[in-house]
């Protein structure tokens, strides 16, 4: 078991009237709703059941986009499902090669005497997220998703096998060819300014594969367990809570995670934050922003 403590500061352009909405849930914003954060993705809802998101911090080195489709969603004046259940399908596409090449010499060899390199590849992602409400503002979320690598040429980069769980998970799909996740999270509101979130995930990576040198395989890389289990505890606090408007709302979050081999994070496409995303219940009381 290893423990990972992650601290991050988050900013959002909107605020909720009620307790801050839970993050990383199945909620999809209503049409024209948007949110933006430094570490959280930029999201924009083109339709009441469809939104796109990208992570600005990584977009220019690891271009990607994620689409989210609300399959079950409470609509204005519509029925509310038991426990406020909402179900969202996600699909994304990532091109990680540029970011990985920036890490040559550190995480990857510089390959200064050969033509070996991090190969071009695309990493599509599909997933399902289901969330339900408990008590007044608590949210239980389950997530299942999978990432696959589509190679687009020779690739000499091999799995990191680091002791840093976030790195291993982050690079699992590009380097092992697959990453699947099954996870659950419970998000509890303590008043208007503080939320506490507990999360557990089980990841399955691809195999270590073969070592490729100068375009040919020289044999299998030593196998390690493809399973990674993580536990994560985090909080979100709000420093100031103006109503809708420019980026004047600031929040901070801190979290602690434990993992058997690693700890949470996600590929660039998987990190979703519902900082400005009201829960289905909250959405009825929150102003629309953006």
């Amino acid at each position, binding site marked *: 078991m*290893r423990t990972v403590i992650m601290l991050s500061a988050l900013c959002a352009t909107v605020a909720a009237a009620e307790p801050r909405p839970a993050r990383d849930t199945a909620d999809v914003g209503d049409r024209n709703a948007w949110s933006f954060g430094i570490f959280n993705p930029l999201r924009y809802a083109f339709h009441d059941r469809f939104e796109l998101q990208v992570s600005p911090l990584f977009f220019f080195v690891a271009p990607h986009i994620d689409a989210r489709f609300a399959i079950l969603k409470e609509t204005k004046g519509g029925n509310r499902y038991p426990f406020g259940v909402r179900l969202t399908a996600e699909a994304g596409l990532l091109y990680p090669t540029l970011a990985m090449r920036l890490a040559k010499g550190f995480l*990857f*060899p*510089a390959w200064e005497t050969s033509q070996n390199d991090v190969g071009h590849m695309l990493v599509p992602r599909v997933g399902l997220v289901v969330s339900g409400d408990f008590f007044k503002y608590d949210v239980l979320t389950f997530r299942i998703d999978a990432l696959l690598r589509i190679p687009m040429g020779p690739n000499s980069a091999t799995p990191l096998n*680091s002791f840093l769980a976030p*790195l291993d998970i982050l690079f699992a799909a590009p380097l092992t060819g697959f990453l699947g996740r099954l996870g659950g999270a419970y998000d509890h509101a303590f008043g208007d300014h503080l939320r506490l979130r507990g999360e557990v995930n089980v990841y399955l990576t691809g195999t270590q594969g073969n070592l490729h040198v100068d375009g040919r395989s*020289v*044999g299998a890389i*030593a196998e*390690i367990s493809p399973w990674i289990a993580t536990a994560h505890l985090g909080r979100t606090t709000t420093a100031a809570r103006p109503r809708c408007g420019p980026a004047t709302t600031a929040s901070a979050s801190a979290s602690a995670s434990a993992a058997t081999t690693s700890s949470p994070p996600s590929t660039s496409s998987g990190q979703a934050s519902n900082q400005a995303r009201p829960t289905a219940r909250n959405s009825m009381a929150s102003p629309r922003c953006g």
Partner: protein
Amino acid sequence: MRSTLFIFLVLSGCEWAWDDQNFTREEVPRYRAHAEHPAPADNPVRLKVMTWNVKYGACRVDFWFDFWGDRTQLAQPEVEKCLHGMAGLIREYNPDVFMAEEIEVGSKRSAYIDMVRFFLENTDLRYAMYGETWDASYVPSEGVGRIDLGNAIFSRYPIVKAERIKQDDRTDQDGITRAFYIHRAISRAEIDLGDRRVAAFAVHTEAYDFDGTKQKQIKQIHDVLQEEALPWVAGGDWNELPPVCDESAEPGSPDSCEGRLRLSEFLDERASAKGTAYEQPPYTPSVLKPYYDDFTPSIPLARYGEGDDAQRPYFTHSVLGPDSVNDEGVAGWWNRTLDYLFIRRGESWTDADVLQEPGRLGITSDAPRLSDHAAVVGTWELP
């Protein structure tokens, strides 16, 4: 910025990112073969001794710091094939005591194979100790990753005590590099021969420093050997040339190295290594003179001779293997001596040699393709 980010990531893990080897002298674990091996002679009067830098089971794969290739990792079959080849040579010579350098027990680059266990189970050596010198959970350079490297001493006779003795670290590196870098240590094993006990030492000194660390380490080893109470044998990779001459002597003077010992421009040095962290520092063979004055080397200077032609049979190292050529098209071959065996002054060696190629002492193994170092062997006539 990268350093700050890395420190943050490192601090986020509960596993130590590296072991700074903070000890002076400490006992280390001993191991025993699971397989049944033939028992050696009781109360021996001589011991066959071998020292070999086994290059982490990479054989002749060129790694990035050698500048002839850029590999940072081996596939599992590559390591297994190499280790089987090395075990074959060890079985052929069949030493009673074997000192191994650059041996790994759980490194990413060598497919996490426990080489101490491998040699225990695949040779007639029945006991071992492992003196770790480099333990980092993740070396953030060139994707090296997890490293667990050290020296090992194997024996057909029981090892009754094993310890490692800390050596000076380099002072010419920044703090982060130094933390993740190798920390040299002397490995020492006490071996019970039945009617007596002897000590064996395995050493491997610094290769790339420009601050005199290697010279300090060599002197420390000399001092440790001088203070040893038991009969002892020391073997390893000193990363230094034999003291045929004085490197500081003026050309033309009696002690000059000119024409007597090559100090630079070895055929396997690549120009692109100049100015890098892996540039070959100038050799200082005079630092080994006290060893030849105070101890008995397996290959004395009189046998070693002067000049490349005379010395070639005793060269122990070549970065470039026989299947590769340098920038001038010359194939690699042993071109300098860095590995030695020593015993106390007044004691004697017989059948000492360097296992450079098939035919030496009757071996058939393809020694030049098994490591970038040749094994140094000899029979120690016990006092």
